[in-house]
């Protein structure tokens, strides 16, 4: 109170004429916002605890509840926004670094929304995906450019290891620990049913999920948690995580309170000890060190699995990607600055990195200029929100997209951005058993499958409209894109023309 007081951000509005005192809101709120008062026969709300996750709103059977933005604001100031001021208050009170979750919410330009997709008219036919085959299968991995023949003149058809996906989307890295067992199970089951991959993140692979290995990308991050021979061998591909779009240059920290039971066992660290992923890999201080790690992992997996190197999109990304391509990596994953996180320092999340659209365009161009684009596949993530984002990314030059926030939304996430509290009411970013059980993987996997099938349909519709019936003919096909409201420089970087040109 007093000088520390910040008026709650949200208001819980209850229509008492509708409230039947079923107390679902009370039972379902892990933040204890709602409380039934027997004497008053009223459900009372303490909005100071509300994070606006909409669990109560979603479960209220009579629609008696809504959560709205509080209008108790400070005096309007175009320079000093309420958020700016409140953050100063918080830091003046605590002396600490501000923490946030999920992706950068600031109003930076979203280039996907300034790019439009082409369609066929008259001069060539659009293709009806309901009548004609429409192919979305992709192979990720090093292809090389030169074909070899044996002494009899026959083709030598051996390719380096490839990751086969039924559609150009994967669920990106989210560790067991940052998200729940049931969230992982949902992702793993959905990926398997869909013929795509999910990613363990740096939390290791729970023993129950080894059976989903053919659809699993196992991650090796700076903390090396849960990494051992069986783990590497279990996955379809191995990913070296250098950085994350939400917090480039920053490591991770899962507090010891979350390192319990299965999580401790899966991460292979003692219960209660903090899981600290260092900012850099302490065996990678330059590009030649990366090459050593890439080949160590290839040796460990007998050159049977593609190695992915994941980096955050930062200013010099084109050169970095070129270096990675030459390090022996089979796939480069680039994470844009709007990518999500379970917890990151707010300042870093909101101010470091570059948009994935620009990073992708410049990396694809750079690799082509150097003639090595066919030596690596490109996977991009960091706020791919819809099938049209996927189509635009592929046309800009990506081989596939990583999605995480969209996947979490399918699992019930309402983007309240308080993952770091561990009290996720939707059973996703929590390890509390009574919250974890709120995500039934039967539902979770079904919703993920629905989402991906819906996107696949939309991708096919968009492709058909362009007269393209195979996703590889879309890859890098920038003529299919036009910019709107972009300046010359942006168009140049994106390698696209302005609409009307």
């Amino acid at each position, binding site marked *: 109170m007093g000088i520390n007081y910040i008026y709650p951000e949200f208001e819980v509005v209850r229509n008492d*004429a509708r409230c039947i005192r*079923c107390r679902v809101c009370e*039972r379902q709120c892990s933040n204890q916002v709602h409380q039934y008062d027997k004497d008053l026969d009223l459900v009372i709300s303490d909005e100071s605890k509300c994070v606006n996750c909409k669990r109560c709103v*979603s479960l209220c059977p009579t629609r008696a509840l809504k959560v709205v933005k509080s209008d108790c604001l400070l005096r309007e100031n175009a320079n000093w926004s309420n958020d700016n001021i409140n953050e100063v208050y918080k830091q003046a009170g605590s002396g600490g670094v501000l923490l946030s979750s999920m992706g950068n919410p600031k109003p930076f330009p979203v280039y996907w929304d300034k790019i439009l997709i082409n369609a066929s008219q008259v001069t060539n036919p659009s293709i009806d995906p309901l009548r004609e085959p429409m192919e979305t299968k992709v192979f990720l991995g090093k292809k090389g450019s030169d074909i070899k023949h044996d002494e009899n003149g026959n083709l030598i058809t051996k390719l380096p290891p490839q990751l086969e996906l039924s559609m150009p989307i994967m669920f990106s890295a989210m560790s067991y620990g940052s998200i729940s067992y049931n969230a992982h199970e949902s992702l793993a089951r959905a990926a398997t049913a869909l013929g795509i991959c999910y990613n363990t993140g740096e939390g290791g692979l729970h023993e129950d999920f080894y059976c989903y290995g053919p659809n699993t990308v196992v991650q090796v991050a700076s903390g090396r948690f849960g990494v051992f021979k069986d783990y590497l061998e279990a996955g379809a591909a191995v990913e070296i995580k250098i950085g994350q779009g939400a917090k480039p240059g920053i490591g991770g920290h899962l507090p010891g309170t979350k390192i319990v039971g299965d999580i401790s066992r899966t991460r292979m660290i003692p219960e209660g000890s903090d899981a600290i992923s260092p900012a850099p890999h302490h065996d990678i201080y330059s590009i030649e060190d990366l090459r050593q790690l890439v080949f160590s992992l290839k040796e460990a997996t007998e050159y049977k699995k593609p190695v992915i190197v994941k980096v955050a999109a930062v200013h010099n990304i084109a050169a970095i990607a070129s270096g990675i391509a030459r390090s022996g990596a089979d796939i480069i994953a680039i994470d844009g600055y709007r990518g999500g996180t379970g917890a990151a320092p707010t300042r870093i999340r909101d101010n470091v990195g570059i948009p994935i659209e620009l990073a992708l365009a410049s990396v694809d161009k750079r690799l082509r200029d150097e003639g090595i684009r066919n030596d690596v596949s490109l996977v991009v993530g960091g706020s791919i929100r819809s099938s049209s984002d996927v189509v635009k990314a592929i046309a800009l030059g990506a081989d596939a997209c990583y999605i995480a926030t969209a996947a979490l939304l399918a699992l019930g996430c309402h983007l309240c951005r308080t993952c770091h509290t561990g009290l996720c009411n939707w059973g996703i970013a929590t390890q509390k058993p009574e919250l974890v059980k709120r995500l039934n993987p039967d539902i979770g996997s079904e919703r993920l499958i629905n989402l991906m099938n819906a996107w696949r349909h939309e991708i096919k519709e968009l492709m058909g409209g362009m007269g393209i019936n195979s996703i590889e003919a879309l890859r890098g096909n920038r003529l299919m894109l036009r910019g709107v409201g972009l300046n010359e420089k942006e168009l140049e970087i994106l390698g696209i023309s302005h609409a009307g040109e």
Partner: protein
Amino acid sequence: MKRVFVNEKWCLGCHLCEYNCAFANSGETNMAKALKNVKIRPRIRVEEGGDAITFAVSCRHCSDPICIKSCISGALSRDETGTVCIDHDKCVGCRTCILVCPYGAISEDENGVIQKCELCVKNAAGSPACVAGCPNRAIIFEER
């Protein structure tokens, strides 16, 4: 036959099934009107124990139902689908069925006769409202 099955692994103890049941059997079209200021008498009941165990119980629609065999008025019977149904005109409220049901799935209604889950075949829901309203698919309606 299709029955209601409960998987306590996914039951959240939210009690929504009870309210959905009471609403479905209220004959009202608005839940607030049906249940506001009413002590509900659901035909499904959530049990709660320590260790976050919660689960719902309703009539199992046994294949060899002892409630029917014990009914002194002939009010209980199985319909052609196997649903154990109650004829409220015949029931005199003797509660012998309550005395014999090993699941505690039969209870007294507000009129002194008994009520039990009839899989919503007699109300406007048409299929079990507890199942439709369960937010975590802990209650499912299927053939096993």
